[in-house]
């Protein structure tokens, strides 16, 4: 069993440090996590535990752009599956995979709160709503 360290105000920065490290290199490497562990005086496994709890943090290398497409019901009702299929076809990869050129990682996510514009997705921090399979190629072109 993990021994939860006593509440220290220092460790409150952990999530922010992880978010920052990820935004710099696109993912959380062993080295980056070890560095955070050292700076907060907590164990490496503790940092790893936090990093793997949150779905937006990744301990595996990701593409330069991360596509998170909503798989929840309001998007599903508006042919979200058609959009998912169209992205998979356009990129030639399945959800959870990264393109060979490292340009895109394609993942499924739960409700992103854009249901009035369903189906919707996030690419990095940008929202794209009212999607149709036909619009996908055009949108992906705008990312480098």
């Amino acid at each position: 069993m993990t021994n939860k360290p006593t509440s220290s105000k220092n460790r409150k920065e952990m999530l922010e440090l992880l978010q920052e490290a990820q935004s710099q290199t696109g993912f959380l490497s062993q080295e980056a996590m070890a560095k955070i562990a050292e700076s907060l005086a907590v164990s490496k496994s503790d940092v790893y535990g936090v990093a793997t709890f949150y779905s937006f943090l990744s301990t595996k290398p990701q593409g330069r752009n991360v596509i998170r497409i909503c798989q929840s019901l309001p998007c599903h009702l508006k042919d979200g599956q058609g959009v998912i299929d169209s992205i998979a076809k356009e990129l030639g990869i399945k959800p959870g995979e990264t393109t060979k050129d490292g340009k895109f990682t394609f993942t499924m996510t739960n409700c992103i709160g854009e249901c009035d514009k369903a189906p919707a997705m996030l690419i990095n921090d940008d929202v794209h709503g009212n999607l149709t399979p036909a619009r996908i190629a055009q949108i992906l072109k705008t990312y480098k």
Partner: protein
Amino acid sequence: MPEKRIVSKNCGVIDPKQIDTYIKQDGFKALQKAMTMTPEQVIAEVKASGLRGRGGAGFPCGLKWEGVRNAHGLETYVICNADEGEVGTFKDRYLLQNDPFSLVEGIAIAAYAIGARKSFIYQRGEYRYLLAQLKDAIQQAKGKGFLSHTDIEVREGSGAYVCGEEMALMESIEGKRGELRYKPPFPTVQGLWQQPTTINNVETLMNVPQIILNGATWYNQFGTERSKGTKVLAVAGDVAKPGVYEMVLNGFYKELIIDLAGAKNVKFVQLGGATGRIIPASMLETTLLSWEGVFSAGPVTVYDESRDVLDTVHRTMEFLAEESCGKCSPCREGCGVMVNMLEGFVKGTAAEKDIKILEELSSTMMLTSLCGLGQAAPNSVMDTLKYFREAYEERIQKTEVVKK
């Protein structure tokens, strides 16, 4: 259930990037008024208004603040829960996007009432594109001298539904995995860093300036006896006009869903998202939007005649199984078992005894789960077994025919 803009009255009226446009609409007058009152008087006013938590549980807001004020601690904290992750809701996004200043003012009043020198806004990672505007709104309020008594820090989630639960949210702010804590002690006594903490939803806090400015008696005129004020709702799914509507808490869902959002051929409606309730179309005219009826914390997802009830319930359970934090076994294991069983119904491979097992499992999870997620996870199963039992039974019959 007429539409009435109290919480969203400034949305579309002010420029969310310019504090002066908010001040022109009586912005920060409530805070100034609150500052002329004692903190106890502010709490008394909020208590008298009957304002209850908009996150879903409906705990009286003034009572929560009073609990914090009376608790013994080295510090007290205000946390604004802006981690709306319930499937089908986007009403806090709409509020944050269009009027961040009312929220800042509400937090400032709460902080004054409980004597918090430090306040937090925990916003979900999915809304990162709103972060700069929110931080800027705080800076502008600070620049005008409105936040001399409390410092508001914005913290960002990282894609975890369960972090909308208050205990998990506090764990997350403390830099930990968003896992549950046992209650009691409640946050009002031992919350963030074990200090007395009030944790309120975006919408709850945005009600506060209007209550202070116009008085509890004015606020009391809206709503039913036990549900005062309005509710901001996010309507999506099979409707002509999806969007955010603010309704007085005293009417029936038909007015919102059929009359305003323009839904046609409704089969059923999911109120309150994945952990919410499902009602058939026939009940829209008799189901009251209030805590006396069915309260939705935000999501109103409409399904028309072409939709499959079991597909909806199965997908709902898949979501909950994925988002369960895993700390308690009734929720962690229960959701997973339910996904498998519901898959049997979707595919038509379910056995007759499965209905009984689903019912037993539902009540076990409701009684023994640690937090609201697990306790409310079986809601969609229970409701559809009640209103759409034939949908389940049809799938069993099919398998038997195949076997013969």
